[in-house]
Each structure stands twice: as C-alpha cells, then as structure tokens.
C-alpha cells in the first residue's frame, strides 16, 4: 500500500446514517448549540415533498426558523445574499441544508455571511480567507453523489462579474451529515445513475491520483464496493431503501476520500464541459471516468488494478492475471455505463455526443471542443493528475470521448 512521506487528512463530519436518521437532527442541533435552524433548499426538493418529510421528522420539539427554498440550480451570489438576509430576519442560529450540490454550496456561502457579518462574499473567496468557526451547519443530501456534505469547498457564481468564486476552508466542512433513504427514494433513475457515477469517480480518482493516502484509500475502497453492489440494485428496484442508504453512504465516503486526496483529469474535463455546455456534473463524470483511468494507465496501472477487487468481487479479481486487472477495471466501468444507459432508456450517456438536454437537443456540439479545452486548462484538479495534460492531450481525449471510442494508448504521450 502506498504511503506518502507526508500528508494531511481531516474529516470532522459526524455521520448519522439510517432509516430514521432525520429524527436525530434535534439532538444533533442541541449538541451544536443551535435551536432555531434555517432550512435551506430548492423548489424541486420542496415539490418532491422532502421538506414536509423533514419537518415531520423534526417533530413538535423543534420549529425551524424558516424555510428558504429560493436556491437556483446554480448557486449564485444573489441567492446567498437573499437567504442570509432571511437568516438574520428570522434570528436563526444554525443551518439545515437539504438538497444536492448547489444547495450545499449556497448554504456554505450563507454561513460565511451570517457568521462573519456583512454582505460581501468576495472578501472571503479563495483559499485560507476564513479564520474561525462558522455557525452550525447540518447537511441532509438528497442525491447520493456530490459528497458536498464532507467537503471544504463551495463554488458560487457571481453573475454580475461572470465568474465562479471558489471558497476553500476547513471551516466550510459541515458539522454533521444526515443520511436517510427517505431523502433519495424518489430520485429519478437517470439522476440516480449520474450522481452515483460522480461518487464512483470521487473514489476512483482519490485512489489513483497523486494525493492518495492510507486514510482516503480506506474510504475510497469502501465506497467503490458499496456502489458496485448497490447501484445495480437501486436501478432494478428504485424503492429499495437499504440499497439507497448504501449509495448515500458510498457518496459520503467517496466525498471524504476526495476532499482530502483531491481528484484528477476526470474532474478537470468534467468541470470544463459543465462550464462551457451546462451539462450536469454526474453525466460528465460517467463519460470521462474510463478515459481518465486509461490515460493515466502507464503511471498508475497497479493502483487501478487494485480497484478490481471492490468493483468486481474476489472471484473475478483472482481469476484475472495481474497485468490484465487495470484493463478489466476500465472495461467494467464501461459496462456499468452501458447497463445504466439501458436501464434509463438511453438517458444515461456513454459518450459526449449522446448527451441531450431536457428538450432532447444534443448539448455538446463537436465545434465546441476547443472552448472546452481552454476551460480545462484553468482547472485546479490538473495538478493532482498523475500524468501531465496539455492542450493537445485534452483535445485528443475529448475527441475520443465525443465519439465514444476507447483511447488509442499509443497517442498518450509519455515523458
């Protein structure tokens, strides 16, 4: 097992997982010294009835100070300001963030403003700008994927200046994550598939990229095993609460792994496609994951090989000769993608050209690949990727992923 000469790992999130996890929230809040939380969520989550489930579970003992459901699909500075205003008006003292990635990002942004005071998020952007603890924040994820409930990052869009601000601080890590299958039971199949592939990518990149360490490895391997076993179950029986809970656990574990070990080129390319074409993050992850493993093969093949055990089980692992294991892992990920495409009647895309928006229009025209290349060159995850990526390399990978063809390994340039 790889053991770096130096590393840091931290995951202070208290995890409460179970079929009645929501009922623990009043107790958690009490431990954190909060009694009047603001629920931050979005309209979709509310329409799915999840806010009612949450308030029902809180019981009579705890009355939220308010429910702010105005979080847009892409977290924005304006929304953060508005919700922070509501927090102050209602004299709240803690936050319950109920939703996916953008709700969590917004909640973290709100927490910065209500804890530090003022209205100027800009002053706290970047890494290391926050210097002290913020107000209690409990995350209740409604997708099993992003892992935001364990991460130290928030990304918030500033529409006026046309930039995405990134906030990085240990103080942004939520105090607790509440994983309850009631929150993910109604997730539609194609979103279940995409978000689970995001979690799988977090685990696999954390395990195979440069910043891996024994702590994150343990979490990553557990996440891969849980997803491999339970994702097909959930796709076959969406109402399977135990399998749903297993996926939620996998996402949290993968989040712990990658928020400490970072991720590599799969996220690099995915962020770029997301930024240029507005494609959901999980969709990009599913498409790029096999390519990332393939591209880095000459650097981290033995690590990729180790993933075969949690991914395919001990029989397949033992049956496969060592040199062939990394290729089996890549093939298994591609197979999983095809299985998910079948299960979602084609909505789960396996190549960039298959990605469609809500109206069925192709979302990634080939002509936009150069734009995506430019965006990829400015993404921080590049640093943690085992092999270097320049513009030509990115374009080569994007072209193959657009077509849905495996990488031509002879075209991957080695030092």
């Amino acid at each position, binding site marked *: 097992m790889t053991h770096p000469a*130096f590393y840091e790992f931290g995951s202070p999130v208290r995890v409460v997982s179970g079929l009645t996890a929501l009922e623990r929230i009043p107790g958690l809040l009490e431990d954190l010294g909060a009694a009047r939380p603001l629920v931050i969520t979005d309209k979709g989550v509310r329409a799915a009835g999840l806010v009612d489930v949450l308030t029902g579970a809180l019981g009579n003992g705890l009355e939220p100070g308010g429910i702010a459901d105005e979080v847009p699909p892409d977290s924005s500075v304006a929304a953060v300001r508005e919700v922070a205003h509501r927090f102050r008006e209602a004299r709240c003292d803690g936050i319950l963030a109920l939703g996916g990635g953008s709700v969590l990002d917004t909640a973290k942004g709100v927490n910065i403003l209500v804890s530090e005071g003022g209205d100027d998020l800009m002053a706290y952007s970047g*890494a290391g700008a926050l210097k002290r603890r913020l107000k209690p924040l409990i995350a209740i994820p409604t997708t099993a994927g992003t892992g935001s409930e364990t991460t130290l990052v928030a990304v918030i869009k500033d529409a006026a200046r046309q930039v995405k601000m990134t906030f990085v601080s240990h103080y942004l890590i939520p105090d607790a994550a509440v994983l309850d299958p009631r929150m993910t039971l109604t997730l539609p199949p194609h979103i279940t598939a995409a978000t689970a592939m995001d979690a799988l990518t977090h685990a696999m990149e954390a395990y195979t990229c*440069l910043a891996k360490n024994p702590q994150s490895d343990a979490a990553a391997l557990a996440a891969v095993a849980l997803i491999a076993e339970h994702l097909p179950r959930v796709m076959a029986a969406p109402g399977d609460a135990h399998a749903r809970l297993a996926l939620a656990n996998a996402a949290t574990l993968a989040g712990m792994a990658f928020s400490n070990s970072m991720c590599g080129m799969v996220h690099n390319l995915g962020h770029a496609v997301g930024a240029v074409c507005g494609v959901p993050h999980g969709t990009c992850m599913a498409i790029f994951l096999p390519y990332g493993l393939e591209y880095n093969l000459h650097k981290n093949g033995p690590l990729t090989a180790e993933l075969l055990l949690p991914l395919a089980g001990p029989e397949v692992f033992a049956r496969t000769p060592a040199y062939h294991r990394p290729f089996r892992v890549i093939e298994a990920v591609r197979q999983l993608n095809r299985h998910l495409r079948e299960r979602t009647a084609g909505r789960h895309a396996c190549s960039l050209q298959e990605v469609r928006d809500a109206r069925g229009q192709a979302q990634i025209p080939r002509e936009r690949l150069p734009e995506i290349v430019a965006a990829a060159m400015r*993404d921080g995850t590049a640093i943690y990727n085992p092999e*270097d990526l320049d513009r030509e390399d990115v374009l080569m990978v994007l072209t193959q992923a657009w077509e849905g063809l495996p990488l031509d390994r002879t075209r991957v340039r080695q030092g």
Partner: protein
Amino acid sequence: MATRWEYRDHGPIREILRCAYLTPMLWFMGRAVAAAAAVDTDVRREFDTLPTPFTFALGVWPAGPAMVVAKGADGRVRYRGGRTAGVDIDLLMQIKHLETAFQMFTFRESTATAFARNRLLVQGDVANAVPVARVLDMTEVYLLPRVIARLAVKRIPRWKPWRTWIGRLRIYWRTLWGY
C-alpha cells in the same frame, strides 16, 4: 548499518545552510520565470490566462526565503524581490517546512508531488495556481539538464532541441544580467 534508525538533531547550522541555498535559488527562479515569460510563447500563454495585474509568491512558511513575481498592468512579467511582507499578493504559496522547500529545490520532490502531499499552504484564488504551476514546470525544464528536470516535472515537453537550447541560453542570459 543502513537499516538502523538513529536520531540526529539538526542544529541551527543546518537551517542556516538550507536558507543560504534557498535564498539565491529562489532569487534565480523568480528572475528566470520573468525571463521565460519574455522568451517562450507557451509560458507567455499561461501568463495571459492570469488576471492583469497579478502578483504571486512562492516561499517558505512563515517568513522564510521567497520569490515574488508580478505581471504588471502592461502585461510584462517582472521579478519583484524576495520579500512577501508589505507586498499585495494575489496568490501566496507557502511551503510548510524549510526541509520540504530544500527537497523541492534540490529536485528530489516534484512540484506536483509537493502539492499532492499537501506540503503547501495556498492563499488566494486556487484556479490561478494552475497556470502558475505550469509556468514553474516549464521554467524548470529550461533551467535544468534533462536528467534532473525529469525528477522535477511530470513529463518533459517534447520541444524541438533548438527550442530548448536557444530558449535555455536566452533565459540564463536574461536571468543573470537582467534585460
């Protein structure tokens, strides 16, 4: 015996020697980055993706040797000295320990590995650290002989030999004598 573990107390002399090595090294590196920006189009292109004006610093935490490099309002890249105090810095990268800095600048640990091992404290917009890391890598490829550069970067770019050699001469000339 090679395997025997032995505690060695490194006194202040070692620290002074490390600083005595790192200070001119960072001075050289800082000036070389400015030179590379003027000489090489790929380095220039990375600087173009950074905001204007933009100042970044690489140094040893908390107040060890450092290099400060700035892209001015005119777009020109200049070395701005070895002190971070009192300078308005957009991106501050600090190596957590003197010993680590020594490892990095004797090219026994690559910049990427140092990042991966969480050996640097980064303050500022993280997205800007990416072009900066690329600039540092390319500058090292110019400055160092191939065998050593291989230890410092993930992959040696496939430049034409004349590009490496003419670039290397021009960058060394500008670094040593200014322009």
